[in-house]
């Protein structure tokens, strides 16, 4: 060993000594001094998962309210708001379930609350009940006419535009403005009460539009309607594949 060392250049030996010192000290610190959790990532993950799971819950959940507020719960089950959690409107209620007397959830009574969902917005899906919050029964609280737990309107809406706002507004600035919705669609009364259970009818063939727009149309509404020769116009398509009936004009 000594001969080997003496054969090695002096410079190299010194460097090796320095490195060995670093290595030994480093190994000692990492292996002996540093505790396991700091070195083992799987332990860290397990601990972090537990910490995450232990975080406090603020929303109690869909069924939590039924235990005490069973009457309201039963009522809500049958109305249009049956798919809403109580906490959608009343906010987080976990604290309330733990101490019902001290902590009360909010009851949103202001007129600015219901329009968060129900104000007219062209991006909202078709058929979703929407109103103009400024024009719709101004200054009255929404709950005056609509029980939030069973929000059917005080009278069945006569106008289709109550729910089909986007279509109504589109049609209102189109050439079909003078047509009633019922001109083309038959809507049973049931549709206004339970919209998803029965749908209004839609025209099925070209001849329907032809009642006003065929060359020989005799309908009294057809007086000023543009006429086309149904046998040649529009190949094999039905009319509404090219002309949007609620805004049928083709010019810009």
């Amino acid at each position, binding site marked *: 060993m000594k001969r080997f060392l003496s054969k090695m250049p002096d410079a190299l030996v010194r460097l090796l000594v320095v490195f060995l010192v670093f290595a030994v000290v480093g190994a000692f610190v990492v292996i002996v001094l540093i505790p396991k959790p700091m070195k083992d990532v799987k332990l860290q993950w397990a*601990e972090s998962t537990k910490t995450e*799971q232990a975080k406090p819950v603020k*929303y109690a959940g869909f069924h939590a309210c039924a235990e005490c507020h069973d009457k309201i719960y039963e009522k809500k089950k049958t109305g249009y708001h049956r*798919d809403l959690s109580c906490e959608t409107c009343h*906010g*987080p209620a976990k604290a309330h379930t733990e101490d019902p007397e001290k902590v009360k959830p909010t009851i949103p009574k202001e007129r600015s609350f219901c329009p968060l969902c129900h104000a007219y917005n062209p991006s*909202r899906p078709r058929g979703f009940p929407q109103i103009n919050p400024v024009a719709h029964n101004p200054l009255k609280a929404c709950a005056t006419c609509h029980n939030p737990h069973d929000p059917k309107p005080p009278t069945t809406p006569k106008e289709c535009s109550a729910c089909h706002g986007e279509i109504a507004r589109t049609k209102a600035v189109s050439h079909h403005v003078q047509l009633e919705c019922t001109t083309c669609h038959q809507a049973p009364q049931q549709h206004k009460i339970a919209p998803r259970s029965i749908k209004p009818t839609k025209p099925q063939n070209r001849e329907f539009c032809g009642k006003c727009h065929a060359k020989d149309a005799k309908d009294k509404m057809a007086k000023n309607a543009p006429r086309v020769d149904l046998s040649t116009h529009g190949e094999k398509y039905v009319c509404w594949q090219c002309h949007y009936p609620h805004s049928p004009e083709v010019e810009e």
Partner: protein
Amino acid sequence: MRDVLAFLLSGGAIGGILKILPSSALAKEAPRKGKWYGFGVSVDKCIGCARCMEACKTENDVPREPFFFRTWVERYIIRKDGEAVVKAIEPNVEAAPDTSGDRSILRSFFVPKLCNQCADPPCAQVCPVGATFQTEDGVVLVNVKTCVGCRYCIQACPYGARYLHPVTRTADKCTFCYHRISQNLLPACVEVCPTQARIFGDLNSAASPLTRFRRMNKIHVLKPALNTEPKVYYASLDGEVR
């Protein structure tokens, strides 16, 4: 010998030895036993009410300023000339005034966004200290005790789902409300959604509402070309959505 050579030259060896392929800690395929959480979004049902954004910030103590979101909702307006206008909606703001007669709109809808809890998360791949990781049940979490705040994961997320928490100075993001789902509750955003536009469930379970969702709809994910294998499935996702 040829087999050995073939293996050595294959990416498998290189990837395995150098671990340049995503870390072994990530369970890419769904585990055969146990839960594997996923999420469904019905774009057609979202009404853009932002109850989900509110509930998420409340449930998870997310800073209220409009710069930090675990979930948000985008509004798309596609005009007749093809131009798409997008903005993120603000919660608790009076709805836009009646825009009746805006004849240039061709179609318009809301798209909820959140962390996709990818099965192959690029965020976990780049974390230098292993602070962000995927749990056994498929949720990507951030270990707030070990995160050094280098922000690499925030850069690596293609969906903009992550932010730096201004108080803890660590990365933060949607956790599917892990503390709730571990007690068989729904995530806060799913809980308060009035139209069931958000659906949560166990992808391994035949009885979860997510399974019906995936059966009845044509399913899309965001940025599939990046191969992050997102677990938030969108139904009726429009091609304009990024």
